[in-house]
């Protein structure tokens, strides 16, 4: 495969040993669950750190449920867009494990700074999944309270949020909230394309210089709209970190367990005052960039099929079945819950009212502005002059 697919079956892997080094060769990546659902007990990454997870059966089932739910809600949003109910939708299809794994690794006190695709992380943070649909429907610009849920607003300007995360992390350190088990950590999400942005590179510089409690979480889904990874970089992205003076690691982003383990470790380092790190979650955008995109213009079907074989949910299901952690009743129940939540989401989206026009004047400034007061008054007079007429 052109992209040096890390989990290619061609590698001829035999039955997984109980404990072993991370896949050798290039690219190296941390994996705890193979595409066929084989569980690897622990992995020593190229950084010499041993990654493992110790989940109860209940927790394994919980992760599976998360994966299925976020995929289903995402599919529902795509369908709503197709029916004209959303202006646009940026699907997370294929990236569920990267998002659920990292999202569940966050502790309550940790703060996340997302792009526009982190619906799975948003779900893990306990935010009503309808919230981003308001943004993409065009009735608001993202309605949740960033401080209440410790999940900032979506950021569409590529890379800009990495600086916000860095500044926030500086503030955490200045507040003396690092250095203990209960310290706070910050995570910044961004894509492979974003790594070319000046802001992201400035954030790397800053976080390194100030030893900020920050995890840079790059979902390398192989594309920035149509442009493949090769147009952004000559070296594997995780290796960029070395030049900025902090650790970088690549994890199988379709493996929810490995993503969890690697992110947990990086967050804990950050909260203990050991500074930033970069995680490259190696994954694939299975769908279009957004509903406005046509990926058949720039990528071939066989590439998509190869990644289909590494689906994050299928491997988790295979694992749960093989280890008898879940039975068919469980899978049916999860599917049923997903269906119900999707129906509920749909009904609530259709009921979302358009905002009152004059609310566009609200919240421009915390302290208001006489200019806006004047414009609002003028607008209201004009608008009200149509009262009763069928304009």
């Amino acid at each position, binding site marked *: 495969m052109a992209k040096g697919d890390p989990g290619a079956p061609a590698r001829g892997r035999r039955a997984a040993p109980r404990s072993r080094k991370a896949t050798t060769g290039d690219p190296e990546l941390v994996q705890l669950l193979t595409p066929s659902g084989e569980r690897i007990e622990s992995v020593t990454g190229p950084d010499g750190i041993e990654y493992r997870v110790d989940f109860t059966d209940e927790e394994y089932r919980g992760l599976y449920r998360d994966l299925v739910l976020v995929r289903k809600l995402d599919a529902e949003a795509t369908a709503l867009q197709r029916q004209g109910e959303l202006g646009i939708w940026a699907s997370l299809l294929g990236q569920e494990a990267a998002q659920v794994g990292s999202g569940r690794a966050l502790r309550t006190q940790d703060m996340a700074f997302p792009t526009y695709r982190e619906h799975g992380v948003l779900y893990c943070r306990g935010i009503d999944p309808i919230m981003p649909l308001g943004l993409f429907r065009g009735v608001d610009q993202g309605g949740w*309270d960033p401080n209440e849920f410790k999940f900032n607003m979506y950021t569409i300007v590529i890379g800009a949020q990495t600086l916000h995360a*860095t*500044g926030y992390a500086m*503030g955490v350190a200045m507040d003396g909230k690092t250095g203990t088990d209960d310290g706070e950590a910050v995570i910044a999400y961004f894509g492979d394309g974003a790594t070319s942005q*000046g*802001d992201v590179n400035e954030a790397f*510089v800053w976080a390194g210089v100030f030893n900020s409690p920050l995890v840079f979480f790059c979902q390398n889904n192989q594309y920035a709209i149509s442009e493949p990874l090769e147009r952004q970089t000559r070296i594997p992205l995780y290796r960029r970190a070395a030049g900025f003076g902090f650790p970088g690691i690549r994890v199988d982003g379709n493996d929810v367990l490995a993503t969890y383990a690697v992110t947990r470790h990086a967050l804990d380092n950050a909260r203990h005052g050991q500074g930033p790190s970069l995680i490259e979650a190696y994954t694939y955008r299975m769908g279009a960039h957004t509903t406005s995109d046509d990926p058949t213009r720039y990528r071939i079907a066989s590439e998509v099929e190869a990644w289909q074989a590494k689906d994050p949910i299928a491997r988790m299901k295979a694992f749960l079945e093989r280890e008898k952690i879940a039975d068919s009743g469980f899978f049916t129940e999860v599917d049923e819950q997903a269906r119900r939540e999707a129906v509920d989401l749909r009904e609530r989206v259709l009921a979302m009212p358009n905002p009152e026009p004059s609310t566009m004047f609200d919240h*421009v400034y915390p302290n208001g502005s006489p200019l806006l007061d004047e414009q609002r008054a003028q607008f209201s007079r004009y608008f009200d002059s149509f009262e009763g007429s069928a304009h």
Partner: protein
Amino acid sequence: MATETLTLGKALNIGLRKALENDPKVVIMGEDVGKLGGVFRITDGLQKDFGDQRVIDTPLAESGIIGTAVGLAIRGYRPVCEIQFDGFVYPAYDQIVSQVAKMHYRSRGKLNIPMVIRIPFGGGIGAVEHHSESPEAYFAHTAGLKVVSCASPQDAYVMIQQAIASDDPIVFLEPKRRYWEKGQVDLDAPLSEAYPLHASRVARAGTDATLLAYGPMVRTCLDAATAAAEDGRNLEVIDLRTLSPLDLGVVYESVRRTGRAVVVHEAPSNVGLGAEIAARITEECFYSLESPVLRVAGFDTPYPAARVEEEYLPDLDRVLDAVDRTFGW
């Protein structure tokens, strides 16, 4: 009243010191603001007294300064960012326009970005390119930002503290060529009783025509008014102080009396503040006007080489020439 004679730069320095003293959440950040005290020494001595967590020498990247300040603001801090020179704010333009200005709006009021972006602006110091620009219109055009400029040591001292205390994101334009000009400053008057930040003010009362200026051009207009007085013309000078939102009530009142208005700024005239002000005066004072509102401004060229900047910048003669033209209508 305990007044002291201070330069405008020193007045800013003391104002910043007060802000650091009054609120532990205030942090100053920028290039060379620490040990050096900034290239204009506006932050002189502050890092020594408040430490390098309150007065932060940042890496050399303007987008990084503003972008990380956004994060600090979300965290509850009140960042005061120094941009070293006007011509170097553009790498931060995206963060300012797309992030700082919109965060409160996008969050429907849930997030505040109480940030002050200090920019030494304008020409007249014989500097090399990119060190003499007047970018105020870019910011005044952006909803969500407020823009102010001080013209005297007293205002510098008060306005910087008011800007830092405000929850609005504010671009604070400092007239760099006036940093060394002296004036009386009342250091003890309580901030709560000070003249409001977003309000214009008559700097010199007059009857025959109204000159409108802000920042470095206020001094130029006051000098022009003094010269005009010798010729028997009594000019009113208004210091606009706030560029976004504009506060034009005092301007309308003045123009209704004088019937003539000249707007003066260093920035190029095309689509500048003067155009907006002239349009608004025309809408509000149409029947009082004896002549069109005129503009005296920088030319629509890139800022020229220092040896010709005297010709580029509005000066006393160009201001008086415009006043003459309003009388010739």
